[in-house]
């Protein structure tokens, strides 16, 4: 069954007098459990696509069905709920809250969702163990290495057991070796059934995905699942 179904998505921005088509007539289907890499030059619409998939942004036209449900027409609060329960974000710059400890950062989505402290603690302890961060739980982000920070961020993204993980250049701020570790981690999550969408510039990393989407000027230039798309 299709997890994500985009039909005729348009997203335009007004830059002065000019109208920029960040996404133009985009049709895309991603199935449950897929591992998709989105590639393309800067300004090709990768980030806009990711924001749209993450319900952080709304399309000007077209429909987005997530798990069979049209989510573009949901109210902001309902969208927040979908983000909370179904979607996990991994950012290039980790985006941990600097004043919170690793454990508190991992627990943050549960805190925001109003899950009681007892359950939070149990799940955080499990996550810390799972990501090899047991003795880092009380460290603040500035006391952690880059790889540890991204592991905390991934633990945070998965703590609500989402169906979809959206990763924006997850290895962009890491050296080759730690980047490799993080990719392995994400791939392990994908292997356990979570749908993984990664935006990346890195050809090598993109090549590891089972499906590659290449974007250009707001359109899909190629989709490895369908062969090359026709422009227009």
């Amino acid at each position, binding site marked *: 069954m299709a997890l994500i179904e985009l039909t005729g998505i348009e997203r335009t921005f007004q830059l002065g007098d000019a109208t920029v088509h960040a996404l133009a007539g985009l049709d895309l289907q991603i199935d449950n459990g897929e591992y998709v890499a989105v590639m393309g030059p800067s300004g090709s619409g990768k980030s806009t696509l990711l924001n749209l998939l993450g319900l952080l942004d709304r399309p000007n036209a077209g429909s987005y069905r997530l798990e069979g449900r049209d989510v573009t027409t949901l109210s902001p*609060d309902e969208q*927040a709920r979908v983000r*909370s329960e179904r979607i996990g974000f991994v950012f290039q710059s980790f985006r941990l809250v600097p*004043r919170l400890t690793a454990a508190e950062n991992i627990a943050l989505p549960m805190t925001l969702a109003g899950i009681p402290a007892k359950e939070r603690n149990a799940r955080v302890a499990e996550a810390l163990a799972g990501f090899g961060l047991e003795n880092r739980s009380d460290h603040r982000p500035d006391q952690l290495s880059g790889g540890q920070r991204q592991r905390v961020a991934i633990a945070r993204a998965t703590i*609500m057991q989402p169906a979809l993980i959206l990763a924006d250049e997850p290895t962009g701020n890491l050296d080759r070796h730690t980047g490799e570790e993080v990719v392995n981690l994400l791939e392990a999550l994908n292997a356990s059934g979570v749908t993984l969408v990664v935006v990346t510039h890195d050809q090598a990393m993109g090549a590891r995905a089972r499906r590659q989407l290449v974007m250009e000027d707001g359109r899909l230039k190629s989709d490895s699942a369908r062969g090359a798309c026709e422009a227009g």
Partner: protein
Amino acid sequence: MRLADTLRFARDAATGYPLRTALSVLAMAIGVAAVVILTALGDGARRYVVNQFSAIGTNLVSVLPGRSGTGGFNPANAITSTPRDLTIDDAVALRRAPAVSRVAPLAVGTSEISYGGRLREVMVAGSTHEFAAIRNFEIAQGQVLPDEDWNRGSAVAVIGAKIREELFGNNPAVGQVVRVGDRRLRIIGVLKPMGQGLGMNTDELVLVPVALAQAMFNSNTLFRILVEAKNREAIPEAKDQTMEILKQRHRGEEDVTVITQDAVLATFDKLLGTLTLGVAGIAAISLAVAGILVMNVMLVAVTQRTGEIGLLKALGATDRTIRLAFLAEAAMLSAVGALIGYLLGQLGAFGLRQAFPVFPAYPPDWAVIAGLGTALGTGLLFGVMPARRAARLDPVQALMKH
């Protein structure tokens, strides 16, 4: 988000920027402390005056010669141009009034007292036996003025504590003969020291029989007649009867003014109460300023934490959650500020009371409640705008700021 989590989140956010938080807490604390201390001063003044009046005697009605206030045209006024003086006989007549328990005539003037080569200027009050009781004067040594015919005037005097000390030092004063003006008077009593009171300083007073005082000052008028009502309820009655008797004696003219202690007290009470309210209002302005500062701080916080707000939204926070978190932070800043200000204010009032023990500088309850309430109110009110701004941020735009 749960309430406890919201509060903890807000606390961590506030303590994450210690200087900014400390400054806004300080501003709020100063505002509340100002309200507490200033109203303590104002209300202290009010209590001080009320106490002073109570010390003079509570059921007191004073009669002054002359009519105060302007009435309409009165034929009687047109015929006699000057009001009649108050005399000792007027005072004697007032003793007949049923609602009156005691009456004391009062004639005052200044003179010189001398003893053993020492000389000083004094205020001389001429009155009678019951004067001390009416005015709540206490005797340290000897006795009060003799209970005699008011028109007689024995050559005796009761002196204030300071005069005794200056003229006699450690020697006994009672029984000694002093010269007051051109009279030789025997001292029969010494007043207990009372300090500065309203009207006259009793420590520097010489009390003599009223007839003697009039003879010394070569006049037969009185400065006041002090009338004591039987009890508090009888005060209006005593006032009416006094007026009626004097009117009859003065051929139907109301040429005296009768003031009740209560009326004077009420006037001062109201006056100083209003003053306290005014001072509280001025202090409340500083609270409003503190509220605006909290708003400023929160607006800066929203700008500084834009990236974090974007993250929270990405992690599933609703607009309401973000609004509440920022509102809680603003409320926390003002609540802590208000609490610290309250403690500082109470400390200041305590310091005032230590420095000036006669001055009862206690902040009134209404001021404390209003001060704390205004602090919390403005904090919340001015917290709403930044919180709404935070909640309305576009998540994509917010996430781009880091």
